């Protein structure tokens, strides 16, 4: 079932629209705010469109700030795929054409996870107080939600380029199969993590933990930052008595020093890359398979050692 499209503006049927803005290669352009959406657009549009995704590998698209020239390029796109859930704040402070914009997570917006870490405040006496709270935005780590976003992308492509509806539908079927397989593998793999002490290095795994029935304590660490005494105390405070095993989830491969410190603290290191940005090697599916592989390698260590004491 195709997901409903944009909250702000649905993409209009351009069957009668001649002369869409074309890229230098003569193909229409689809802009995406993160790599998963860019990957879906690349898979679904196959050969007929160029996908514009400017953040370079290593850049987190959620915090990317485009230059004026980059915004101008995005404005020329025939379709702009937004993640929704407040992802990529630049989209609310930059001018992008409303009518070309599609929010791919609209179909499950009722299931967004609210974050309650804002400060309630007011600016002027007598005005209403408010909180800058938001929702978790790494929606695609629940691979079923990723499927819904892929479907929404396909629907938008079919509306914008009806002449390619057959190929888009065909590619969507293949993509949904791949994502469904990954979801099943992830579900099977993570089943062993239920009930374990799970600490994640960054607050980006909310949908992943919910989808696969996990419970995680979230920190705000970078993989390469130096872990001092305060960080290790913070980590120690997350320990649950009687846990069968303790796992520490990193966003990307951390430094060897950090791996060692976490191991000494009694946790098993696992890398689950959210893949928000374009990977240096491979594609979205490959990164997700690597995540499953990393979990498959790490989980047995916990099972064999039981609760590891430092």
């Amino acid at each position: 079932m195709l997901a409903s499209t944009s909250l702000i503006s649905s993409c209009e049927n351009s069957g009668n629209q001649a002369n869409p803005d074309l890229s230098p290669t003569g193909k229409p352009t689809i802009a995406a705010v993160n790599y998963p959406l860019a990957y879906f657009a690349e898979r679904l549009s196959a050969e007929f469109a160029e996908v514009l995704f400017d953040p370079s590998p290593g850049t987190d698209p959620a915090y990317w700030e485009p230059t004026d020239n980059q915004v101008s390029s995005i404005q020329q796109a025939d379709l702009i795929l937004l993640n929704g859930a407040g992802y990529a704040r630049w989209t609310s402070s930059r001018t992008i054409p409303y009518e070309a914009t599609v929010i791919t997570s609209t179909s499950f917006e009722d299931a967004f996870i609210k974050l309650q870490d804002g400060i309630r405040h007011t600016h002027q006496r007598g005005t209403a107080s408010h909180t800058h709270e938001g929702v978790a935005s790494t929606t695609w780590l629940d691979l079923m939600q990723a499927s819904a976003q892929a479907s929404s992308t396909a629907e938008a492509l079919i509306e914008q380029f009806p002449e390619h509806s057959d190929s888009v539908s065909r590619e969507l079927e293949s993509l949904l199969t791949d994502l469904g397989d990954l979801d099943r593998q992830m579900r099977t793999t993570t089943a062993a993590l239920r009930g374990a002490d799970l600490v994640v290095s960054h607050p980006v795994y909310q949908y992943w933990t919910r989808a696969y029935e996990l419970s995680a304590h979230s920190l705000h660490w970078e993989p390469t930052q130096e872990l001092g005494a305060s960080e290790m105390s913070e980590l120690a405070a997350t320990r649950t008595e009687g846990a069968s095993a303790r796992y520490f989830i990193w966003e990307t491969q951390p430094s060897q020093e950090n791996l060692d410190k976490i191991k000494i603290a009694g946790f098993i290191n696992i890398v689950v890359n959210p893949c928000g940005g374009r990977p240096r090697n491979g594609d979205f599916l490959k990164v997700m398979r690597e995540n499953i592989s990393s979990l498959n390698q790490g989980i047995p260590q916990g099972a064999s050692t039981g609760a590891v004491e430092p």
Partner: protein
Amino acid sequence: MRSSSIVYLSWKALRYRPLRSLLLIGTIALTLYFPRALQEFINRSEEVLSARARSTPLLIGPRGSSIDLTLNALYFTSQELPALRYSSYEALSQKNYGKTIPIYSRFLAGQSPLVGTSLAYFKLRGLTVSTGRTMTRLGDCVIGANLAQNENLQPGDTITSSPENIFDLAGVYPLRMRITGILAPNRTPDDDAIFVDLKSAWIIEGLAHGHEELSRSETLELQRDSKGEFLRANASVIEFNEVTDTNVGDFHFHGDRGNYPLSSVILVPHNQKQRALALAHYGDPVTAEQIVIPAVAVEQLAKTLFATQRLAFTAFTLLGIAALALALMVFLLSFRLREREMLTYSKIGATGRAVACLQGLEVLVIIAAATILAQAGIVLTRSAAQDIFTRLIS
């Protein structure tokens, strides 16, 4: 008497009383000019109104006067109707009735209307940026050609929005906007307008703002209300009145965006089916919004203009008859005063026909000069009618 002599004597007679001649020419010219000029002005105005209305297929807005809604959307006149909610725009966008272009035309910068819209507006109106580039972020604007010329503005300059009420000292700060581009002239109200992203218009409205981080303890006071404790930023917290590359990320929106205001939405159906569906949906009196066909609303306005024209035309005709009668009387009195002169011409051998020709030529020269003057005025009026009408209606 030779023809050349008649011409010479007529010319001398007209030059002998220049004030009388000029007054007669002016009176007759104005008598001829006014009815025709009014007709030209009304005709041209109707053409201008119709052209802009035809390029705006459908308009959706709050219920009320369709003419007010149309003039606000097309000519950026003051917003007389209540605001349309952004959620209505979202609902319309999801109905697949065609391309939707939001318009929020409520604020001014000086005397120039400030229009919050999307980039699709420029495509609809065939507007191109002649200098600079289009807006790319909050606080950016592109301005019309006339405004740029009159105020000597260039890309890189700034322009500041005007507060709605100068006595509202606690109200929203005026927003200093960065001019990123100048539009090519298209001889419509767009030439005098300032265009911003809809979100920038909401900053001016006070629905979004940017301020320094509320992390310093000296900027905050702990307060309590029915929902518990909250922090109130004191007066030392600086709200930004200009969006810059540094603070653009600090601007944020408050409240439910569905309640944010718009003036109207231009709907451009891609086919007759979409148009019919939209008309049917919003034609239902149960819906909170109305749909207007601008061409029809303008036709109603034109009918009013025509009624006014008929009234003015009748008045000018009556005045014209009176003025011509006065001119005739001036001629007759003038001839009476010159009876001795005519008698002298007769005595020195001029025939009665030559004397009549002499007098007739004087009248003819005055009428010809007045006609040429009136026609020149009509041509000027015709060429300036579009600009005059645009300025009058805006």
